[in-house]
């Protein structure tokens, strides 16, 4: 057996065995084999299959297949869907239709010029509702606020669901049943709450993304639309010298020093205090409109979800409402762009989109779809006010690295407003300096 060919045999056998194993184990390949000429559409969703949003979309996808004969291959990827898409662009495995929030789609696909232009969808007649085009039913303000992220395409997404950020409270609470409209009224109610031995504002120390809504809104109210963006994108840091910035920081500091933020917030992990709020341990909770759905399991008996727009600090202040858009996008490299666009228009039909409200308890992008009961206030806020993006839509990178670390110190009560402004200015300069 010491024959020199022994190894050759073994090597051949090994290769053979490997190929057989690959074939037998049904090793998956990327070729989707749409060779039969039939129209098809591959959709990667931000929802996981068991979520109610997925069920709503599934219903429409099925009827779309029936109505158009286009075969839909849907994959419920979950929140990290765009990471999968970016990988796909590298490995040649690209879906035709994707959905996510604007602040995920923008940097991933718009900024890199990988998103198709969806302008044509806006003028498409909606199947089953031929008297309307998509542009007729989805408010133009949603398209207007979309930042281009430096990319060439402006209309890179069509929203089907909207969230907005407002102050939530329990309408059935005994301490301060009336919603405040001004900052001073809010403070007065906070004092009432503290006197009644409960927290006023619920917040989790580690949820900086949520806590920064307070500062973002205050800057907006004190300084107007676009001010926050200026603060973040002024490479010299000079924007921080404005007296109104200090005032906004002082307003945060006041919440902290007067004990208006729920006890233990600086040491808690999201969503602990969110749940405490739902259990009536605090009066107010500034959060996206998903808050009722998230807290439903923890809500105290008789909890009546109400919301009000972030209070104004002066008579002529901006009342713009933070809005987050969730919608469809089509990668530029997608093979079946027309089918994808066709589905976007198809889903914009009122009956189909209304599932987002009735089944998933979210706000639909069409204002004529009734909001779910616990979001009635929120829908009114959205309709009655101007719309803006949180942090004026600046990139998440500058927020994560240039803004959040110092803001934490202010919100957690470790620095005074004056110290904060100084540090934040330095952090902004350092961020842009490092960016080169």
């Amino acid at each position, binding site marked *: 057996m010491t024959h020199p060919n022994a190894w050759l045999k073994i090597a051949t056998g090994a290769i053979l065995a490997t190929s057989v194993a690959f074939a037998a184990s049904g090793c998956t390949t990327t070729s989707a084999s749409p060779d039969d000429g039939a129209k098809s559409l591959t959709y990667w969703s931000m929802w996981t299959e068991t979520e109610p949003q997925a069920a709503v979309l599934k219903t429409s996808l099925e009827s779309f297949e029936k109505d158009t004969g286009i075969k839909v291959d849907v994959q419920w990827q979950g929140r990290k869907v765009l990471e999968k898409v970016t990988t796909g662009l*590298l490995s040649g495995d690209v879906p035709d239709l994707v959905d996510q929030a604007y602040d*995920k789609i923008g*940097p991933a696909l718009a900024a890199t010029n990988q998103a198709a232009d969806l302008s044509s969808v806006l003028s498409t007649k909606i199947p089953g509702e031929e008297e309307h085009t998509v542009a007729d039913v989805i408010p133009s303000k949603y398209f207007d606020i979309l930042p281009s992220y430096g990319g060439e395409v402006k209309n890179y997404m069509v929203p089907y669901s909207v969230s907005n950020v407002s102050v939530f409270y329990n309408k059935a609470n005994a301490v301060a049943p009336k919603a405040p409209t001004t900052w001073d009224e809010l403070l007065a109610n906070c004092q009432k709450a503290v006197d009644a031995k409960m927290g006023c504002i619920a917040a989790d120390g580690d949820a900086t993304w949520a806590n920064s809504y307070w500062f973002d809104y205050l800057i907006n109210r004190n300084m107007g639309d676009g001010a926050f963006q200026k603060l973040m994108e002024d490479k010299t840091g000079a924007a921080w010298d404005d007296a109104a910035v200090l005032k906004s920081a002082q307003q945060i500091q006041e919440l902290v020093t007067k004990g208006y933020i729920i006890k*233990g917030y*600086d040491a808690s992990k999201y969503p602990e205090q969110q749940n405490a709020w739902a259990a009536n341990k605090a009066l107010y909770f500034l959060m996206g409109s998903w808050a009722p759905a998230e807290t439903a399991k923890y809500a105290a008996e008789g909890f009546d979800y109400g919301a009000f727009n972030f209070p104004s600090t002066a008579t002529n202040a901006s009342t713009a409402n933070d809005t987050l858009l969730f919608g469809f996008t089509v990668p530029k490299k997608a093979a079946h762009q027309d089918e994808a666009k066709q589905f976007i228009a198809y889903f914009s039909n009122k009956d189909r989109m209304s599932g987002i409200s009735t089944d998933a308890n979210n706000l639909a992008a069409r204002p004529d779809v009734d909001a779910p009961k616990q979001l009635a206030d929120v829908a009114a806020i959205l309709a009655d006010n101007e719309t803006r993006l949180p942090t004026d839509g600046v990139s998440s990178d500058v927020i*994560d690295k240039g803004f*959040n670390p110092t803001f*934490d110190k202010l919100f957690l009560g*470790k620095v005074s407003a004056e110290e904060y402004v100084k540090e934040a200015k330095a952090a902004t300069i350092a961020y842009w300096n490092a960016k080169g």
Partner: protein
Amino acid sequence: MATPVISPARGRSTGRPRAGMSAIERSRRRLYWPMLLPALLLMVLFYIVPILYAGWLSLHTWDGINELKWRGADNYIQLAKDPIFIGSIVNTLKILFVVGIVTFVFAFALTMILRDMMGRKFVRSVLFFPTLINAMVFGIFAGFLFSPAGPINKLLAFVGVQDPPKWLAQDNLFNLIMIVMIWSATGYFTTIIMSAVDQIPAYYYEAAGLDGAGPWAKFRHVTLPLAWDVISVCAVLWTMSSVKVFELILVFGGSTAQAPPASTWSTALYVYQAAFGGGSREFGVSAAAAIVSLALVTVLTIGLRRMLRREAIEI
């Protein structure tokens, strides 16, 4: 690359007389390449090529989609200016030195305590077990146990501590992470050190005892020097592991789809975040950070080896 910290163990084969070319030797020679090649190939594919590729990427800017652009040393300059990257290095060093030293002190203390204790095998197993569990689990546990209204604080209130530390506050988060690391690593190093100490023949202790040595003197003059080699190997092991710490931090601070607070990042977290964390992918920066962490582990291992070797001679 890391250093040749661990000199390949010499078995008896090297000392074997080479009786010319025996039959076994010949067949072994013929089998040399076929048997070695698959592993070697994987080594090249999964270690050597990627490291070279990372070095090359670190000189470019690339989002993984569009054209790759030459950037020279700018990625490294950007890192040097980035307070978050510097912070991640500091955190990694804290893990290495603070966690490392405390863990070793604990491991030695445990070894001493366990030496003559009933049920030492059982105790050792129970303390060892956390080493085998995915650290993410501990991150989730800690969030529960240390929450403001959680069990630890309730327990403290029960014994009269009314104002407990703010465990999960950002300032303390990293300290808590270090505590969890100490807890989960102590059992592992205790086991190693125990097995080394167990091999020290009893008569050394008996001799020391006859010379009138107390427990401390025995530890200082018998245990420590004789176990020194193992300690130095453990130190190198710890260096390698400390640079890799990832899961625990990822879960500890980040509760939802968000990234954990930048103040808790280790170099591994930084590399991950730069490449896959945010919306935009910065493969170049990520690769540069990766190369820096590779340099870090190399320098640290060499330095540590030197330092420990000298001390061993001293004793």
